[in-house]
């Protein structure tokens, strides 16, 4: 097959493509002259961390850049130059011959129209005809992408479908005109692992069936290794390395590629001694969310997010809480910290905290902290880093003078490996990894005993993820911290925790020491999870 593809002419060839953005702070060169070829029927993965320009390359080719972006160079599709082509002529290619699917299936569909209409629109636009005439074709497409019961679902609205189904709809729209090239921009990043695997399988089946080329833009090397034939590694707008997948993973030439490949979280955490006292415990935790019935409906219904879960965190322990979105793992973390109304018996060390209200909990807050997933959202954009990390001191040690607070801020920043000068700057001036360090510093400055980490690495690039995990393990060893580590990423959980709790639909499906869970999962659901995660990343 490789012999054949090498012989084939590329259908899309990009030469010296540059993308730059005009901003008030001067021009930003997002892509600095790259060359790449897409051959018919192959899967080309474009890999890189966020900010490497991998998405902007494709957006530039497709003429979809933001208003302040300009693209220069050349991108030819079957001999037709696409850069600088007028939008009308470009439309004949994009959406028909080259199509795209995006990361966010939740926002890429128009919520006002049924999905069948949205798919039919693509067909009608490029081939003419009426909505009605396109209907059989739409049904066929829905069947193709594996939507169950397409006759009924064709008139559904996007909000009636799950994330995975919406991504399937997006794929159906992309396939509507039988494209030669499908550009998939992080198609599975927003999806749960099990669904991720299904979508990737679907893409591969469709690729074989239609013999189309797929350009897969991703930061996940696990997917690349399993899925792509050739890989282009990008960094800071330049191509660092490209080659066949096997070769590239076996003998990476560039240091950067090697670093990316080795960034997979590694190491294990030893369990604390058996007699370690319990630091934080929740027995029979139940969390109900009230769903308001609205103005006319009198009775409000409830949704049980966490259903009778018992979890006890020992001193020095890290409990990994695993589950897909909606499994109630984040809710459980907040309930343990008594941040949301919940039932059950809670205790912190030897104190019973079940009956405490907000004011009663306040003195204990310094000992039990929370770190959030999104390093962009969890820092107030209008405060300096110094103000952010010393906020806890302002509450719990109000007697401290300004100079003392400043000293503590410097210590905390050094502890998380940031330059103390950072305290005068604002969060928007930092990268995702640095921001997550700031968020950790904010929790650590109070010298807590138990910390709930809610997906602290999910929004970060792999290489940065490794560093943050390293930091968290470091802090734990130094201060004997106990963590509840919530994540959907099994490889991270494996590296971080000594005990794993698997949750599904608000209940614990399985729990046990990490190694036992990963080597011999008992519950069927755990097996699916592990299977899905490690079949992509073998």
């Amino acid at each position, binding site marked *: 097959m490789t012999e054949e593809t090498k012989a084939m002419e590329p259908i899309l060839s990009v030469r010296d493509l540059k993308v730059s*953005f005009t*901003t*008030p*702070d001067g021009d*930003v060169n*997002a892509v600095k002259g790259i060359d790449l070829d897409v051959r018919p029927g192959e899967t080309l993965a474009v890999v890189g961390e*966020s*900010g490497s*320009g991998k*998405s*902007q390359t494709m957006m530039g080719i497709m003429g979809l850049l*933001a*208003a302040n972006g300009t693209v220069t160079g050349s991108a030819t599709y079957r001999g037709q130059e696409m850069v600088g082509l007028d939008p009308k002529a470009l439309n004949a290619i994009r959406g028909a011959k080259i199509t795209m699917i995006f990361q966010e299936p939740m926002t890429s569909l128009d919520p006002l129209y049924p999905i069948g209409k949205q798919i039919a629109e693509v067909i009608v636009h490029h081939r003419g005809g009426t909505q009605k005439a396109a209907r059989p074709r739409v049904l066929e497409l829905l069947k193709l992408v594996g939507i169950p019961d397409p006759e009924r679902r064709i008139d559904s609205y996007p909000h009636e479908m799950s994330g995975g189904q919406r991504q399937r709809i997006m794929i159906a729209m992309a396939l509507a005109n039988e494209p030669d090239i499908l550009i998939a921009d992080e198609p599975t990043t927003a999806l749960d692992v099990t669904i991720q695997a299904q979508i990737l399988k679907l893409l591969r089946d469709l690729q074989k069936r239609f013999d189309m080329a797929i350009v897969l833009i991703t930061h996940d090397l696990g997917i690349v290794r399993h899925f792509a034939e050739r890989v282009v590694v990008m960094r800071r707008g330049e191509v660092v390395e490209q080659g066949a997948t096997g070769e590239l993973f076996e003998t990476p030439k560039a240091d950067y590629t090697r670093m990316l490949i080795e960034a997979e979280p590694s190491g294990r955490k030893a369990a604390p001694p058996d007699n370690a006292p319990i630091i934080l415990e929740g027995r029979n935790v139940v969390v109900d969310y009230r769903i308001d019935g609205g103005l006319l409906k009198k009775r409000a219904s409830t949704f049980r997010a966490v259903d009778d879960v018992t979890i006890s965190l020992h001193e020095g322990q890290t409990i990994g809480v695993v589950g897909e979105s909606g499994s109630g793992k984040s809710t459980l973390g907040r309930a343990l*910290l008594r*941040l949301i109304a919940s039932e059950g018996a809670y205790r912190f060390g030897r104190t019973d905290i079940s009956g405490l209200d907000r004011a009663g*909990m*306040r*003195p204990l*807050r*310094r000992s039990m*902290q*929370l770190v*959030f*997933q*999104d390093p962009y*959202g*969890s*820092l*107030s*954009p*209008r*405060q*300096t*880093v110094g103000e952010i990390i010393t*906020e*806890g001191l302002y*509450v*719990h040690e109000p007697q401290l003078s300004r100079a003392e607070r400043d000293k503590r801020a410097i210590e905390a920043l050094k502890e998380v490996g940031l*330059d103390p*000068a*950072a305290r*005068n*700057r*604002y969060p*928007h*001036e*930092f*990268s*995702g990894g*640095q921001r997550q360090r700031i*968020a950790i510093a*904010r929790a650590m400055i*109070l010298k807590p005993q138990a910390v709930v980490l809610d997906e602290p690495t999910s929004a970060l690039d792999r290489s940065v993820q490794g560093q943050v995990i390293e930091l968290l393990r470091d802090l734990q060893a130094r201060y004997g911290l106990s963590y509840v580590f919530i994540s959907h990423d099994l490889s991270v959980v494996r590296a971080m925790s000594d005990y794993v709790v698997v949750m599904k639909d608000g209940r614990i499906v399985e729990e046990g020491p990490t190694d036992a869970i990963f080597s011999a999962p008992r519950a069927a659901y755990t097996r699916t999870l592990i299977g899905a995660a490690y079949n992509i990343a073998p």
Partner: protein
Amino acid sequence: MTDAAVSPSPAAEVKGRSLFQLALLRFRRNRPAMAGSVMLVLIACFSFLGPFVISHSYDQVFSSYVTTPPNLEPRPGADALEEATKRVAARARVELQSFSVEGETFTAVVTARDPIDPRAARYFDRANEFDKTEVAASEDDGRKLTLTGVVDREYFLFGTDTNGRDLMARVMLGGQISIAVGLLASLVSLGIGVVYGAISGYMGGRIDNVMMRFVEILYSLPFVFLVVVLVVFFGRSFVLIFIVIGAVEWLDMARIVRGQTLSLKRREFIGAAEALGLTDWQIIRRHVIPNTIGPVVIFITVIVPKVILLESFLSFLGLGVQAPLTSWGSLIAEGANNMQSAPWLLVFPAIFFVVTLFSLNFVGDGLRDAFDPKDR
């Protein structure tokens, strides 16, 4: 993706730029917005510093110069002086033999059949045009008097109104009051609206429900009715205008801030603050209000012109500022009544008013771009 590339490397500088400073930088690059700001400063200087420069006060009546059109030449002019002297002479029952002006002084020779009382000079003084009239010489047993005095020349660059008051001084005063009403009433609405909206949005649930229903009740009251009621109860006063307008305008502000707060509430930094143990009020003060500042500042630039217009409307109805105080609104209303006979009465206040509103809109536009560059 691009913003990661834009953010400067942390080692580059120690002192960070806050979002506000960045917004200011973007604002400075916006030409129309900067022009608008300069214009506003000029108009404010004109209104507030102008009265110290010109010699007329806003309530000084020049009975000789009722509805004089604007002119760059000083009043009275040569022929007008001649005319005025004749008028004075007639009133003093003397005959004017000759009249001449040299620089600032005039010399008039008057005759009569009977000896003239030297107090006739006072007739000259009584006219706005002449001052310090003295009898320089007396001939023919007092039948012929030579009077000298100073010609009181006045500049009316904007002309005068129907009562003979200098329109320029009036426009300056109107500017002071309109700008003051605009700013103060907006601040009143800002203060009430931001706090009310933030509390309502942050507390949520029943409190939010009650607070917002109250706002809706106030919304449904007709504005003029509210004003009339307040005026009846408290009598007319300058302060009342701020309160009335502020009391109406904060409703919009409260809604905007509440909406902002609702979306802020779901942001993780609010959750983080809760996890740190901050009280509700601390969270509102330290996290909610500072983060609503962008939309609020923009909305202020919409409110200020709106308030100025409202004040004009009230003045137009006779519920606003009372004579001899005035505002641009009442000046325009007055000018509109005399549009045909004395168009300048309408033109000058209208120019200032329109330029101010335009400038405010440009500034508001610039602020919006500066605070939300991604919205464009």
